[in-house]
């Protein structure tokens, strides 16, 4: 990640001021289009480009995936998992790709790429990033089912938008670490800003960064809108991916699958409104959220 010109050093500044400085650096980069966003891993990108062609060859797709041993292991595990529910084990990547079909393959490639964005090596954010990824998976699963049951579009788009709705968070977190290092130099770990303020900065700017990443990764338009517009419900377009993601996000928080403080009353209001907005009765919603934590754990394992 490239660094911006470091602002004047301010080691004695109060933490609030430091946080403001950091936020300024990040927003300036966003505004001047100088964000350095994680690239999609080459193998995933190549395969995604290949499957855009309706006449693509499964053999060729399998051949590309086989170049990445981690991706190969992941796809074999997924194809032979309970989720794919088959009797005989897939013995090759080609068999796995054939079994999955193009939609599932596309989702798999994007998911495996997104997962890397949430993997931090910095011990200060490694736990939080893992937690945000768990939350994102929960929102993805709920988003898919909510879209399906409310007839709000393609369930796959609901899944992808849910999975990527917070993808800006780890990126902003990494940018903050880098910016702080630029300001404080070697003292960074000793004067790390208050975690509440740090989270505040991430909350305020992550959405723009997430949308920028989704654009860079050429996500379909409904997915982009789902990430960009999921801050507040839109009554004028009730059955939209964005509304489904907003609702899924509130439900995941209600289930306690979230990193950070949740304003319970605000969140309950979102759940209450979301049910009516998307036309889902309480019974359906209860069933959708049943064992959500276990489902997320299963997907993570």
């Amino acid at each position, binding site marked *: 990640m490239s660094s911006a010109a470091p602002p004047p050093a301010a080691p004695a500044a109060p933490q609030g001021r430091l946080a403001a400085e950091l936020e300024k650096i990040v927003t300036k980069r966003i505004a001047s289009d100088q964000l350095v966003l994680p690239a999609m891993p080459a193998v995933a990108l190549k395969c995604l480009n290949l499957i855009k062609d309706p006449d693509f060859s499964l053999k060729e797709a399998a051949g590309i995936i086989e170049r990445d041993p981690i991706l190969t292991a992941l796809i074999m595990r997924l194809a032979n998992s309970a989720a794919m529910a088959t009797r005989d084990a897939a013995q090759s990547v080609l068999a796995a790709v054939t079994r999955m079909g193009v939609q599932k393959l596309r989702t798999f490639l994007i998911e495996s790429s997104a997962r890397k964005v949430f993997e931090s090596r910095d011990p200060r954010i490694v736990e939080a990033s893992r937690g945000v990824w768990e939350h994102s998976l929960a929102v993805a699963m709920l988003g898919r089912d909510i879209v399906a049951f409310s007839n709000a579009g393609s369930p796959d788009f609901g899944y992808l938008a849910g999975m990527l709705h917070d993808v800006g968070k780890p990126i902003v977190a990494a940018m903050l670490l880098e910016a702080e290092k630029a300001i404080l130099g070697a003292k960074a770990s000793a004067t790390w800003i208050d975690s509440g303020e740090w989270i505040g900065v991430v909350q305020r700017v992550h959405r723009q960064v997430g949308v920028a990443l989704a654009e860079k990764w050429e996500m379909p338009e409904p997915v982009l809108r789902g990430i960009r517009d999921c801050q507040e419900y839109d*009554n004028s377009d009730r059955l939209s991916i964005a509304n489904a993601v907003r609702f899924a996000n509130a439900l995941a928080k209600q289930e306690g699958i979230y990193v950070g403080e949740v304003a319970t009353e605000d969140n309950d209001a979102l759940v*209450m409104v979301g049910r*009516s907005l998307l*036309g889902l*009765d309480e019974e359906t919603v209860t069933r959708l959220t049943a064992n959500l934590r276990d489902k997320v754990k299963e997907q993570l394992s």
Partner: protein
Amino acid sequence: MKILTVDDSRAVRMLVGKQARELGLEVAEAEDGEQALARIAEGKYDLIVLDITMPVLDGPAFLAALREKGDRTPVLMLTSESKRSIVATLMKLGIDDFILKPFKADELKAKMLKVLKLDKVPAAAPAGGAAAAAESAVVAPGSATAGGKTAVDILVVDDMETVEKRLRTMVPAEVSMEGATSAQAALTAARERVFRLVLVDNDMPNTDSTSLMRQLRVVQPQAGFVSLSLRTVSRAQEESRAAGFDGNLFKPFDTAGLEELLQRYFDNQELLVTKENVLAVAPFHGRENKLPGYFSQVGSLIPKAVDGLAAACFAEVVVDITQMPVILDKTARLVLQLAEHSRRVGLEMRLVGSPELSKVLKQLADTADVPVFASVADAQAGKLGPPAGGSR
């Protein structure tokens, strides 16, 4: 029961009134918060259906004034406002549920019933009103459930319309049926109705039938799910079970396969009668070639019933198979399976049967020690009769 609808739109008040009256409720109207406070001063209401934006005194101000007086009448918001901050403020003031305009009559009715806790029918409800809407979860086909959902026997999900039409000609008229030619149509149907059996084609364009079945199961947990496949599909039964279906039915349909399916899903209640901890198996009626199906059904029904008794903390289960035909291998296998299952869930099994049954079981090493009681009363008392055939 009486409700007050508070809205500056006459059309909305009329609509709310109509739905409420259909549920057997009395209705009063108010155009704004001030009028509503005046109405409440004159008499008590069981529910207030409240708008937010109104002239004179708006919804939030009315609600705050009401609560300040200590009035805790349930409030159902009916509004076009969805801003989180506003709704959260209303929640703090105490609202029971929320409906976003424009709304569907079904949603309004269901939420009024829920807020009013109308599991029981209001005495004044007209026929077809709350009486129908508030029935218990166990419903007859064509009737309405507690959530206002209609019960239908079979949902056929297949992109070819002819499949449902063909099936319609082959099943008895009293079995209700509905078709869906796309995944979306199936999901919509599943949200709006309650099904006992869902048939899902495993080769629909752009649809993963396993994923669709799983999504449908979320809202139809009580239903059986059977995949539909062509006879040319190898190992269709095994594959569909591995995918999580309860079975598979081949297309084109044949009478035997269909009969077995209908028997499995629509005749079960007659096959096994449970009274406290006594399970009585009904006699077999029909052609001999149906016997394997009969045994297989009984074999799948009894373990579930035994689980229910274990959950209810019974110590013994009395299984009365006096009326079952006795066929050496089938009967012995069933008894073994039953004994093993009862043991696994911690219940003592007491078998009631004919002397012939006792004789048959004694011929096989695995079942020779299974005691057979002559009557349910003997089994309950733990009193065994004389040995079968006098050879003991």
